[in-house]
């Protein structure tokens, strides 16, 4: 597959809609296509039911959509999606393959890259084409303490785009594209890791990932009781509660609350961090917030380096007065 052409996006579904992350990946692919003099963008989507997603893929930037519908794809087991993506790469023979660094993408994309005999540029914040038409990506490394720029040396280059780093294109229903069924036989034997039980605990109230305001607490809160005023604050200003890994590791809150490199990425307008030191791995999940506000008793805490407003003090004294004053202002 030495001389690839075009860009293949490995798509994902959100229910029976095209996932937002895939619209972002298509948008990135269109920019790359532009830099390559208009090479075609294709998309592969696979599931037990695709709904209107193939058409949405075209509106979002794809020229060709390869579809696979099979009961084997119920719950999108990574083993089956890897097989689909590998097949799509054989058929489309692309120069670049772009996916998203999501729960599914993390399991699928490295395997696809290894099957294609190349390596994956992981967790890319930006993607561009260099003068030799190599795919070049910037990505955080060392928990976000440094930013690396990596060039992909082999074809096809495979990259995992970090969610929310590219704006999706405005859907354009007048775009023209082709929908094709991907030629692949899938049967149950492809799925080696079988899901036998799943417990989803959807968050109460606003989802962390979607919240416009996030109030997060860290080890400095001293225990699960410390989160009571944080919950009050969140409901007062219409936000969601988040936490540092230290809090989840200690069992004060379930891991679904964790913000950061290995937790959730949040992009609120306002991120209030209470008793959080601001380790790079935590900031990796919240540094795209429009404004960070920190309450921490240590003036040297790293969180203040990225905060717009800060109070150096004991949260037990700062927070109640802060909440009372907000109450008054918001009456």
């Amino acid at each position, binding site marked *: 597959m030495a001389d690839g052409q075009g860009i293949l996006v490995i798509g994902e579904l959100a229910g029976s809609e095209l996932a937002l992350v895939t619209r972002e990946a298509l948008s990135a692919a269109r920019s790359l296509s532009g830099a390559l003099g208009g090479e075609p963008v294709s998309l592969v989507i696979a599931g037990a039911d695709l709904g209107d997603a193939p058409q949405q893929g075209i509106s979002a930037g794809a020229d060709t959509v390869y579809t696979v519908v099979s009961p084997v794809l119920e719950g999108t087991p990574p083993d089956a999606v890897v097989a689909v993506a590998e097949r799509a790469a054989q058929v489309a023979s692309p120069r670049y393959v772009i996916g998203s660094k999501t729960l599914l993408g993390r399991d699928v994309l490295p*395997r696809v890259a290894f099957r294609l005999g190349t390596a994956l540029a992981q967790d890319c914040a930006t993607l561009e084409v260099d003068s030799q038409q190599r795919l070049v990506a910037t990505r955080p490394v060392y928990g976000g303490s440094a930013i690396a720029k990596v060039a992909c040396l082999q074809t096809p280059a495979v990259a995992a785009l970090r969610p929310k780093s590219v704006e999706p294109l405005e859907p354009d229903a007048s775009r023209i594209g082709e929908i094709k069924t991907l030629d692949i036989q899938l049967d149950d034997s492809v799925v080696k890791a079988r899901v036998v039980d799943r417990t989803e605990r959807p968050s109460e109230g606003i989802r962390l990932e979607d919240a416009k305001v996030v109030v997060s607490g860290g080890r400095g809160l001293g225990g699960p009781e410390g989160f009571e005023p944080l919950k009050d604050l969140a409901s007062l200003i219409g936000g969601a509660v988040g936490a540092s890994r230290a809090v989840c590791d200690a069992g004060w809150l379930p891991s679904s609350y964790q913000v950061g490199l290995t937790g959730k990425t949040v992009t609120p307008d306002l991120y209030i961090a209470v008793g959080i030191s601001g380790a790079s791995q935590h900031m990796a999940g919240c540094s795209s917030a429009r404004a960070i506000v920190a309450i921490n008793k240590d003036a040297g805490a790293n969180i203040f380096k990225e905060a717009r407003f800060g109070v150096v003090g004991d949260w037990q004294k700062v927070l109640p007065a802060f909440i009372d004053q907000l109450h008054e202002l918001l009456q």
Partner: protein
Amino acid sequence: MPLRIVVTAKQVIDPETPASAFRIDPQALQVLPPASVPPVVNGFDEQAIEAALQIKDAAPDTNVTVLSIGASFAMDVMKKPLAMGADELVLVQDDALVNSPDPSVAVHVLAAAIRKLGDVDLVLCGRQASDWDNAQVPLGLAEKLGLAVTTIAKRVAVENGIARIERVLPDGSETVEITLPALVTVSNELGQARYPTLRGIMAAGRKAPTIWSVADVGLDMSSLTPGLELVGLALPESGAACEFIEGEDDADAGRKLALKLREAKLV
């Protein structure tokens, strides 16, 4: 047949190194190991070792071999898994194994070393190494060795040749079953790894690690083509300059903060 488990473990710069001690050489494209902070076993790998030892607790004839590859090792650091209770430590040490964001070299060398170890039932890895945060080596290794794989485990149990894995999902968890041989990556949700006991430390002191070169595992470095090239390395730009809100006391500062956020139309 007793179970044979291989746990991969990487020596990394301590991720708790304070930001002020984190240095890079932007010309040489290298992260400089902080002089005052010793390296550690990657945290998720310690949890993978813990997962293996829990399986061994239930089936004491299980063999747990810890495998690491790298250019140089701090022996006291790398011996910690032995002190925790692992049976063997195998180190593939070679100047050519420089740390790089390209996972393919590590995949090839680890795969060759695991093949040399013989029949392995279960490979446990950390979910990612806290240096390049790649989360790729295990998946590549599974492809290379033809093993079934699942990731981000918070519990791993083995019974009758089947691994039962509880995985962490963003909003819940799921249970996955895989017929051995298999590869599983482990996350911090598994819980704090056990501390070495005094007896463990003494026993580890008597065990010598097996040290192989790349040639010993039957590989020729020049035949490994890199997939990625590092072309830039920089420190992130620091964010906004913080405006500190002060008051007569902490409570007053809290009140003023509320007023400030209102003024800035943030609430």
